[in-house]
């Protein structure tokens, strides 16, 4: 038992201050690797402060002092007991981490595709059965015009309507689509209900637009317009949906014995890899949409645009399906 608290505090304070200074240094210089004698000193100080805290706990003392020492010991604990290797930026890990994370959760991706296709089917049939529902289903003013009118305008345009605004249009597309993808993933926290609604709604719009253009006989225009950017953009949003369902799966946790925090801890790296990969895909898709997709025959032949889109889709599939396989 500590009989004389002020004397004990006076004797121990230099060690507490030394530990705090060491931890502050590690905070401000995260890349610094401690030499062996410094690691040994950190361990000694941690043990000494922990012992001091334990001794203070056995004897009633100033709560503020105990709180201060608890903060110090907890900071040292996190440095000493962390067994996970600190994440370092390794290009190989980044390049292969994304497709590996994607393949580990193929079921969630299939669900994401399935919900979107269901939405597509709904949008398709809604437009085919009731063409007047277009005003309700289409979110953008540009899509409300008749396809024939739009195609005529695009193919006979004498000047570039995006002239001097391509870069800003591209930036707007990138930021908007990344937001949509992140929200689709984050909505997994609603046990997947929000993710499901967003994917279904995206599918409805896609199906409605496709039905409108194909019924009017402009399937080639539609494919040439959507495929160059859509072959990357749509999978990226599906990946957001995959992330949302992974999150929802960890929250619900059917069948497993692990606790919810354990399940969430296990999926965190994969979720990050998927959302980061999708964001990079959307940066590419934004550039393609602004600089290629908005130009039609005769500026860029449809065949070339479709071939470009198909190549992107094949490359993306190959990357997600095979990159980093062991």
């Amino acid at each position, binding site marked *: 038992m500590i009989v004389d608290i002020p004397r004990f505090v006076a004797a121990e304070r230099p060690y507490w201050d030394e530990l705090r200074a060491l931890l502050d240094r590690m905070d401000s210089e995260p890349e610094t690797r401690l030499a062996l004698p410094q690691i040994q000193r950190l361990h000694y100080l941690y043990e000494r402060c922990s012992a001091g805290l334990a001794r203070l706990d056995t004897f009633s003392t100033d709560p503020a002092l105990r709180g201060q020492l608890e903060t110090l010991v907890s900071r040292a604990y996190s440095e000493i007991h962390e067994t996970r290797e600190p994440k370092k930026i390794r290009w190989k890990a980044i390049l292969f981490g994304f497709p590996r994370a994607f393949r580990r959760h193929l079921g969630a991706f299939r669900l994401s595709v399935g919900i979107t296709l269901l939405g597509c089917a709904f949008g398709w049939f809604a437009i085919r059965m009731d063409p007047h529902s277009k005003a309700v289903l289409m979110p953008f003013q540009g899509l409300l015009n008749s396809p024939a009118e739009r195609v005529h305008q695009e193919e006979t345009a004498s000047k570039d309507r995006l002239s001097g605004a391509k870069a800003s249009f591209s*930036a707007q597309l*990138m930021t908007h689509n990344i937001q949509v993808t992140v929200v689709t993933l984050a909505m997994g926290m609603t046990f997947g209900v929000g993710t499901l609604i967003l994917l279904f709604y995206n599918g409805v719009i896609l199906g409605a637009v496709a039905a409108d253009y194909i019924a009017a006989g402009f399937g080639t225009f539609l494919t040439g317009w959507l495929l160059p950017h859509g072959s990357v953009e749509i999978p990226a949003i599906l990946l957001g949906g995959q992330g949302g369902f992974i999150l929802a799966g960890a929250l619900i946790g059917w069948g497993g014995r692990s606790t919810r925090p354990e399940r969430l801890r296990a999926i965190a790296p994969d979720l990050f890899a998927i*959302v980061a990969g999708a964001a990079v895909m959307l940066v590419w898709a934004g550039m393609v949409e602004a600089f290629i997709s908005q130009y039609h025959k005769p500026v860029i032949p449809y065949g070339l645009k479709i071939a470009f889109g198909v190549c992107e889709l094949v490359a993306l599939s190959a990357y997600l399906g095979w990159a980093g396989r062991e």
Partner: protein
Amino acid sequence: MFAFELATPVTRALAWSVDTAAIIVANIIFGQIAKLAAAMSADLANAMSVAGFFVISVVYAIVLEWRWRGQTIGKRLFGLRVMDIHGLRLQFPQIALRNLLRVVDMLPFFYLVGGVTAIFSRNAQRLGDMAANTIVTRERKADIPDIERIAPAKYNSLLSQPHLAARLRGLVTPEGAALAVRAITLRDSYDPPARVVLFRELAAYFRRLVEFPEESTENLTDEQYVRCVLRVIYGVR
């Protein structure tokens, strides 16, 4: 062996408002830089503004919490720190995830979902914290007051009952002790009647925690009693 003190939703909201101000300032500075690019191309300048605003808003907290071990400017100012729920070192995916999930916590406005979740959560976690297994703690930095200066005494009769003095030290909260220190420090600035009421209430609070025998408190005014209590709490003889 040790416990974390969780940050309250109010403190977190204050830290967040400082961070929002920091993001706005960063965006204004970046907007000025982007304007310089307008000399080359107005389109490029616009694109830089749009992308810059988005990147700064998303990346601000992620980068700072990663570099400063769980702290942003606002969190540093208010002594808060994001920590792994098991006290381990934060991993980058945890930081990214808790910040990306802000979009849900911010719904429908002013962090209503996140705020309500934090109020009802056992560990004061918003949804992003739950997904990332993180908590936000308040760092306790004890400024040990100079008791000899603010509450000098030749003899402390409460110390004649060491077992009761020890119990008092164990029962008093940091907030209660801080309030008493503040009352003693500012005593001269109070009106005499208000001062009498204040020390009566403080003395009554400490008496409720531990009752000393009459011979130890005899002839002590309420203010003297509070001074003696402070000397007991901070271990000054």
